[in-house]
């Protein structure tokens, strides 16, 4: 039995019973979706279709249709890749790291956050695959299979190959972890369908639940599996963005060749990930009327994580600047001078404003507890984090060692179109998830709801004591 302080705010408000939890979450799967859902799906599909057209054009003509040139050989594709992978990190942080730290507030947000992780990683993976030009050969090139022209193997010294392993492991393990969590909830929906007499839904959700029954021994094993998956996912998620940062840090390009990249990238990833979780959940809780499960208390805690990680990111920016001067390395110094003062200064200062200054507003409790302010700031943070990757990548490349090869990077409609494609993909996937899957982990929330309801019942009593 775990002891929870009675001083803590209840995690689920509205005095919900265990039965209410089943009902409130399952009904979105059972009922027809609201009109706003259809509208959002239609918009996402249109965006997706336009993006798909751009992606097909890139595949047909080759990546020459992008705005890349000899000097800037990496721009929007890798920026977007890092941005999406970073967003994914919050889901694993919530489901794995907060589980190890026994943070129960994760319970009503982990399902949606993990779904976001999975869709974000899929979006991220599209960029390196398309950048290969012939993506149908991607697996053949990236995996250690003997080359057709001799028995050459993949180069295990390359961080790009480490990325292949890191991202695919991260995707697989996150998917498995998420699915394990879904199994008991699918069984709940199946059994409700049996009672309602909907045989088709019962059969579908039974298959999805793998015939789950919830026997004592199965639950015991299930908890062991969840705990170990959390233990495995924790170093995994840290390794993923560490390895992503090594794509840059192991090179010798001034501005990239930095030892603080791994922790700085991981903090940035969690920062942007939490911002995206907030953007999604603030909408989901209103559309599906889940205000009693995703409360203002959850939003405040996520905002606090945004302050912490945002401040780490801010310190990293300032450290980078300081070291580039203090190191006395001319090239390093110029790379940063160029970031701050050069033709891309507008991107640098957008990044500084969005990532360093704006999250500091959350120190003010009123802003932290305001849904509108949180929503706006969550979007600003993600814009800032996109600029961070753009600044690191493009400004470090565009002024090469020889001034004759200095260029600027200008995205074409296909650069933009592929980014748009991933938005269409992401939101379509998330909307389908929100309709057909239980958006909140019912089994976990049920395990805390009874003590919370008692707390809600007692709250007037506590107040009386205080006043007396």
């Amino acid at each position: 039995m775990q002891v929870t302080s009675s001083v803590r705010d209840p995690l689920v408000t509205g005095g919900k019973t265990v039965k209410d939890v089943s009902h409130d979450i399952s009904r979105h799967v059972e009922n027809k979706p609201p009109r706003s859902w259809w509208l959002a799906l239609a918009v996402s599909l249109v965006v997706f279709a336009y993006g798909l057209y751009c992606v097909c054009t890139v595949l047909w003509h080759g990546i020459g249709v992008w705005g890349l040139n000899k000097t800037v050989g990496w721009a929007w594709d890798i920026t977007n890749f890092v941005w999406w992978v970073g967003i994914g990190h919050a889901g694993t942080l919530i489901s794995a790291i907060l589980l190890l730290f026994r943070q129960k507030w994760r319970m009503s947000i982990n399902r949606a956050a993990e779904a976001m992780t999975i869709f974000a990683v899929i979006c991220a993976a599209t960029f390196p695959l398309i950048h290969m030009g012939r993506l149908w050969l991607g697996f053949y090139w990236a995996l250690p299979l003997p080359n057709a022209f001799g028995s050459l193997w993949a180069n295990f010294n390359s961080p790009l190959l480490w990325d292949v392993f890191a991202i695919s492991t991260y995707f697989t393990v996150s998917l498995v972890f998420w699915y394990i969590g879904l199994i008991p909830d699918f069984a709940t929906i199946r059994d409700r369908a049996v009672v309602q007499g909907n045989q088709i839904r019962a059969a579908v959700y039974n298959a999805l639940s793998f015939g789950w029954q919830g026997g004592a021994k199965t639950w015991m094993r299930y908890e062991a599996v969840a705990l170990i998956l959390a233990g495995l996912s924790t170093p995994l998620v840290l390794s993923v963005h560490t390895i992503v940062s090594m794509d840059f840090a192991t090179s010798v390009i001034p501005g990239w060749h930095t030892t603080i990249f791994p922790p700085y990238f991981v903090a940035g990833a969690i920062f942007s990930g939490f911002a995206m979780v907030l953007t999604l959940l603030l909408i989901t809780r209103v559309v599906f009327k889940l205000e009693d499960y995703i409360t203002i208390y959850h939003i405040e805690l996520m905002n606090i994580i945004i302050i912490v990680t945002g401040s780490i990111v801010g310190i990293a920016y300032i450290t980078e600047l300081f070291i580039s001067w203090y190191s006395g390395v001319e090239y390093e110094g110029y790379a940063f001078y160029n970031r701050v003062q050069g033709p891309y200064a507008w991107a640098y200062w957008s990044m500084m404003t969005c990532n360093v200054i704006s999250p500091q507003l959350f120190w003010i409790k009123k802003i932290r507890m305001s849904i509108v302010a949180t929503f706006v700031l969550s979007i600003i943070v993600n814009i800032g984090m996109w600029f961070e990757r753009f600044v690191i990548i493009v400004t470090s490349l565009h002024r090469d060692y020889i001034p004759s090869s200095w260029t600027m990077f200008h995205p074409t409609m296909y650069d933009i179109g592929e980014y748009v494609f991933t938005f269409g993909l992401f939101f379509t996937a998330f909307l389908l998830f929100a309709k057909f899957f239980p958006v909140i982990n019912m089994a976990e929330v049920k395990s805390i709801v009874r003590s919370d309801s008692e707390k809600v019942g007692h709250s007037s009593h506590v107040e009386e004591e205080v006043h007396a």
Partner: protein
Amino acid sequence: MTADKNFLVGVFDNEEVLLDGISKVRSTGLKIHDVFSPFPVHGIDDALGLKRSRLPRAAFLFGLTGTSLALTMQIWMLGYDWPMIIGGKNFASLPPFIPVTFELTVLLAALGMVATFMIVSDLKPYKWPRQFDVRSTDDKHVMAIDLALNGGKSKEEISRILKDAGASEVNEKNFE
């Protein structure tokens, strides 16, 4: 009467009553077939006298397999099968092999453990489970007593024991 066919099913309203009930039922010498809950109940394994799961050990062994596979693969490919000079480093230098080794360790540990869990718990998509009470995935805890294994006691007697243990209702469930 053959085993695994005829059951008495006690329905419990919440986990405290259930945990208390389990020890009461077990103290009468009655054998419990299984208890079905909508969420994991802490302490139920001790109450039912279940042994700790060995899945962590399985995960460790799968992880170890991943580590050795990854190291063998990389050292063999780049060190022996087709040595290549990359940045003037040793053919089989360990540090750059660590990331892939770590990832494959995690991958095999996770997939191996989950597959083992699925197999030992008999979870498969084409299985329709025997439902003792559909409310056991909603809000009730359900205790199933196999009548054939408790032949010494009559149905009425078992029913009374379940009621005394705190069951809000007792139903009979027969499977063909």
